[in-house]
């Protein structure tokens, strides 16, 4: 990735369409999660239970991967290993050749986003179709996903309709229902023609060699059941020990990601079609990719590997809510992306991401596996400073805030950004010692309409009071 974070942020903040989409989307996401977690037996106890399940899996990672491998083979499947993204793409290309594959449908897979598999396949004359509705629209637009659960969160329904109209001749409509039905028709043919289906993996259950995927649309079920070759692709950290672990994790994932009790289709794949089964893929491969993850295990960042990619921390994050996913520059946006991206790509490739946070703690509070995201962001900042990073972090933080302050979408952002800025300022030293120039300018303009939010004024007064007391 290129480090053009600052530029991307300015573009994002000035993009009215993006701001509208983010506002509508993240608000629903946060509300859905809060309601769904509140309806459980004991949300905090369950999060802790889920956390322990992930910790145990990471503590025994090499053993569990080997157990998984043995059981996949016992089920009649094959297991292949990839050190990095290039090896992963080569493995899949080789499989395409071996099985004479012309057309591929893909269920959602973040790992193949890491490796940019679609480009590799297309460069070799293989047609790839993303089958998740959001991923498909993103692919059609020639874009990349902006959220790990809602890939087209950056797009409004109006823009989606225009795209489907322009590219596929869909009659114009403003109803998501009509757009969805239209895409269903297009995709149906793709599934039936595909030679290979590729999917990501949400959990790999070691004790039976079962691949679990989680989805709502049915595209993943179709991609993993209809084509004659099925390839599942996972990062090494996706393995879990037991079915009891699966039961808690899969339920917290659904509740945290979308507010559902369970996602519509929880697909559990154990090898290829058995001789006596009437349908399903003839061949099954599991590809296990490292791509930098083994470097993280055993370090103080190991808990980032516990992530189950629910996206709750993205929705909850005041920075993500304002800049969206693309500004983060790589596959994993939001708070967890700000940790995982520098860890996987190397700190110098994304030096600004650890600062793209107000350390407000909303991410950690939302996380179903209790990942201490703010702590890790601070450690990453420390690492950057120790490595002689030329840009002091607080400057980027201030810049982020000041930029947002000046942007034309100020009206709607006001409350959120202000809260973020005060937390950022207070977060550095515990107190605000002096108010920096843009802030100071605002305090003079008392009648500035965007910040009429009284809670902000109260907070500001409180902060200033604290300052005088000190």
């Amino acid at each position, binding site marked *: 990735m290129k480090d053009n974070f600052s530029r991307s942020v300015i573009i994002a903040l000035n993009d009215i369409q993006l701001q509208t*989409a983010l506002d*509508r989307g993240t608000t*629903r996401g946060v509300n*859905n999660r809060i309601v769904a977690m509140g309806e*459980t*037996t004991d949300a905090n106890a369950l999060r802790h*239970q889920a956390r*322990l399940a992930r910790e145990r899996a*990471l*503590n*025994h990672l*090499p053993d569990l*991967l080997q157990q998984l491998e043995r059981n996949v083979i*016992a*089920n009649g499947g094959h297991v292949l290993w990839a*050190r990095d993204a290039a090896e992963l793409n080569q493995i899949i290309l080789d499989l395409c050749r071996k099985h004479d594959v012309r057309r591929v449908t893909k269920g959602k897979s973040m790992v193949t986003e890491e490796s940019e598999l679609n480009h590799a396949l297309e460069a070799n004359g293989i047609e790839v179709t993303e089958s*998740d509705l959001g991923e498909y*629209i993103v692919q059609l637009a020639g874009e990349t996903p902006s959220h790990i659960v*809602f890939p087209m*969160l950056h797009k*409004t*329904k109006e823009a989606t309709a225009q795209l489907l109209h322009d590219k596929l001749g869909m009659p114009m409509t403003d109803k*998501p229902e009509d757009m969805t*039905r239209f895409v269903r028709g297009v995709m*149906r043919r793709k*599934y*039936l023609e595909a030679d290979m289906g590729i999917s990501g993996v949400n959990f790999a259950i070691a*004790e039976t060699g079962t691949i679990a995927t989680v989805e709502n*649309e*049915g595209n993943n*079920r179709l991609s993993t*059941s*209809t084509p004659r070759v099925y390839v599942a692709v996972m990062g*090494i950290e996706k393995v879990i020990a037991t*079915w009891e672990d699966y*039961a808690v994790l899969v*339920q*917290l994932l659904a*509740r945290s990601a*979308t507010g559902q*009790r*369970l996602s519509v*289709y*929880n*697909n*559990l794949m*154990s090898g290829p*079609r*058995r001789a*006596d089964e*009437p*349908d*399903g893929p003839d061949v*099954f491969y599991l590809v*296990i990719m*490292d791509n930098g993850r*083994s470097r993280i*295990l*055993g370090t103080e960042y*190991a808990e980032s590997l516990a992530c189950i990619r629910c996206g709750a921390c993205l929705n909850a994050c005041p920075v993500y809510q304002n800049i969206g996913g693309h500004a983060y520059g790589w596959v994993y946006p939001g708070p967890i992306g700000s940790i995982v991206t520098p860890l996987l790509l190397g700190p110098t490739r994304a030096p600004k991401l650890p600062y793209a946070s107000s350390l407000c703690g909303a991410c950690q509070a939302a996380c179903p596996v209790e990942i201490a995201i703010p702590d890790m962001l601070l450690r990453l900042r420390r690492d950057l400073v120790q490595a002689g990073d030329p840009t002091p972090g607080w400057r980027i933080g201030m810049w982020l805030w000041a930029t947002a302050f000046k942007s034309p979408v100020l009206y709607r952002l006001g409350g959120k950004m202000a809260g973020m800025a005060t937390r950022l300022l207070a977060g550095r030293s515990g107190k605000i010692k002096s108010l920096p120039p843009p802030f100071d300018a605002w305090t003079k303009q008392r009648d500035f309409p965007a910040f009429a939010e009284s809670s902000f004024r109260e907070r500001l007064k409180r902060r200033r009071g604290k300052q005088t007391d000190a």
Partner: protein
Amino acid sequence: MPSAREDILSRLRRAVAQQPTFPNRPQAPYLPVTRLAPDEDLKARFIAEVERVKGTVHVAPDDAAARRTLRELLAGRNAQRVTMWDEAHIPLPGVTALLQELGIERIQGSNAEVATADAGITGADWAIATTGTLVLSSGPGKPRMASLLPPVHIAVLTEDRIVPRLEDYIAAQRAQRLGVFRRSSNVTLITGSSRTSDIEMHPVFGVHGPLELHVILIENLSEMG
């Protein structure tokens, strides 16, 4: 040169060798996720949960009523072609005869053919009350496509197959040494109708999976004495 597999595994072994990455913390017995009243009526809860996720449950007091419901569902959709599990795996006798009587053709064979069916009829291994979930495993006479390709999925279920929670389903499989997850290439937990929230997180039902989900729930005979 070591293989990628050896490389990755040895790196991981080195990482976990010195000390475990996380302290080994004792694990208390698992707390189940969903709430359940001590006197919960599982049938009522299951029906309520399925309807929340845009499925329809048709309660049938006996087989004859279940067949009447099935007939209405098929006739109401003007179904000409139906794909289904073998009758042995559907807990309702007389489905084949009913299709013949209605002049409905039974489709089997390639995915492309099955995709032309107007409805798919299946049984279900289990149902989960607190989440409104159906559990379907693949196996001889139990094609995956019957619950996947047709626009309408009709699952026939007897009340005694309802367990309270996902955790209870897993415990039951544990008691059977997890055999189903080794035997069946596919087990699917179906919770409601195919849906998406991709467009502005606005829920839309009927995406790539079936547009309609119907459960014909046959009540227990024992209840009627």
